[in-house]
């Protein structure tokens, strides 16, 4: 794909001006880093970081049967959602594999707002339209929506200075209001393992929001722009799956450790019978954490082995900036998934020792204190 064909967010010029290194991410020309992945990662863990995630897809589901359509599409239960609440859910194929993982925002009884992975937007839209009920409309709002994420321990105080809206929202709650004079949907969600917010606004206003938040950060609390490189290491440490790595058409959500987001007690949904059966039969493989014992970094696609036999594969892996260790996530047979199990990662033809460890690698209480649930 040539550069001319890559899609750009409304903040493209801002990224170039900030010295970002740009990459092709699923057809989007996005900043992978500004100052450096390690520095950006640490900034989010210790202060605050601002991400342009305008490439994400936003799909609106509206109409008198909107809830039934949502319930049919996702594995989690949206029936109990209050207006102003968000849930995370996989969306599955009939065989139990994952179409995508997404957030569902309940904006009104007949109005749900679905946020999906950028590179899956077209596929998801088609899937949702094919599988929607009569009297439900499914509309792609991605081009009409820009999205920023402000994440880290300083996210709340920085953002609060820019808005009259009381931001002490519970985890996975959202509200509407003006931030820096820009009308936003303000959501206490994120993909970093830190307290933070995701802000949705009109594309033509996002530059003002971006510049104002970065400038506000300089009043004592630094806010750094963060690229997709650190976004990936942050979500990885927090044990959050990435579609195409821990999730995919041939991986079911139970194997990926997302069993708590699959609710077989609710009425029919796509993939239900396959997932109920898979659970009843017992899972064959499981996603685990892997820590290197010998020197090496486990990378996505590397083979996992035990006693000379291939037993699975790494889905994601990197040097963990917060823990200073070389860590991975990967699938292994259930009987080899216990913490402390010794295995090997095949790195450039060599079997390198590693051990199964618990996940998430990095954990911070995101619900405590400020919740108004």
């Amino acid at each position, binding site marked *: 794909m040539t550069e001319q064909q890559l899609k750009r967010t409304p903040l493209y010029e801002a990224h170039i001006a900030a010295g970002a290194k740009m990459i092709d991410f699923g057809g989007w020309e996005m900043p992978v*880093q500004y100052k*450096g*992945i390690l*520095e950006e990662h640490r900034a989010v863990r210790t202060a605050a970081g601002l991400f342009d995630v305008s490439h994400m897809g936003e799909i609106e589901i509206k109409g008198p049967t909107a809830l039934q359509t949502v319930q049919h599409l996702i594995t989690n239960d949206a029936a109990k959602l209050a207006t102003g609440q968000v849930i995370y859910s996989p969306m599955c194929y009939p065989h139990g594999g994952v179409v995508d993982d997404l957030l569902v925002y309940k904006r009104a009884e007949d109005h749900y707002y679905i946020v999906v992975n950028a590179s899956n937007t077209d596929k998801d839209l088609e899937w949702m339209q094919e599988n929607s009920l009569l009297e439900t409309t499914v509309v792609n709002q991605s081009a009409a929506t820009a999205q920023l994420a402000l994440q880290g321990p300083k996210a709340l105080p920085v953002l609060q200075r820019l808005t009259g809206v009381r931001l002490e929202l519970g985890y996975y709650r959202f509200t509407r209001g003006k931030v820096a004079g820009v009308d936003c949907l303000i959501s206490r969600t994120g993909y970093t393992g830190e307290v933070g917010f995701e802000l949705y606004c009109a594309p033509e206003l996002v530059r003002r929001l971006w510049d104002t938040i970065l400038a506000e950060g300089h009043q004592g609390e630094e806010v750094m722009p963060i690229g997709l490189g650190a976004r990936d*290491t942050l979500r990885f440490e927090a044990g959050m799956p990435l579609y195409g790595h821990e999730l995919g058409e041939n991986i079911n959500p139970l194997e990926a450790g997302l069993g708590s987001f699959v609710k077989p007690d609710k009425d029919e949904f796509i993939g239900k019978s396959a997932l109920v059966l898979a659970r009843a039969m017992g899972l064959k493989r499981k996603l685990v954490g892997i820590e290197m014992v010998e*020197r*090496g970094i486990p*990378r996505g696609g590397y083979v996992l082995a035990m006693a000379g036999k291939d037993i699975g594969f790494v889905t994601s892996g990197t040097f963990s900036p917060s823990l200073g260790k070389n860590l991975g996530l990967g699938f292994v047979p259930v009987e080899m998934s216990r913490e402390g199990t010794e295995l090997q990662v095949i790195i450039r033809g060599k079997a390198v020792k590693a051990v199964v460890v618990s996940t998430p690698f990095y954990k911070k209480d995101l619900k405590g204190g400020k919740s108004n649930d």
Partner: protein
Amino acid sequence: MTNPRDLKYTKEHEWARIEGNRVTVGITHYAQEALGDVVFVELPGVGDKIIEGEAFGTVESVKSVSDLYAPVSGEVVEVNDNVLDSPETVNTDPYGAAWMIVVEIADPTEVDKLLSAEQYEEFLAEQD
């Protein structure tokens, strides 16, 4: 940063310091900048043989894995353990503390193929 004039270079972005039949090898400033934060380095052991143009080690940044290509053939006589323990020196001091190995070359004429600093910079200019 300019590339030291007294070193030789390859199109794979390694540098070589030639002192008689001993050649010290590292990666260039351009390479470390393109890689980003280096978090892991793998090198051969003392006594290993390396072959010109073939991979002799690996350098990994947070996101990427790259081979190191031998600028010359010969036997590894020294390995920089510090760079194994502190891979970030590849970013901070690529031409100094982050030297990687010393090779004793078998064929001294091999170094004639290497690029001068000026030639390497011309090559870089063509890449952009």
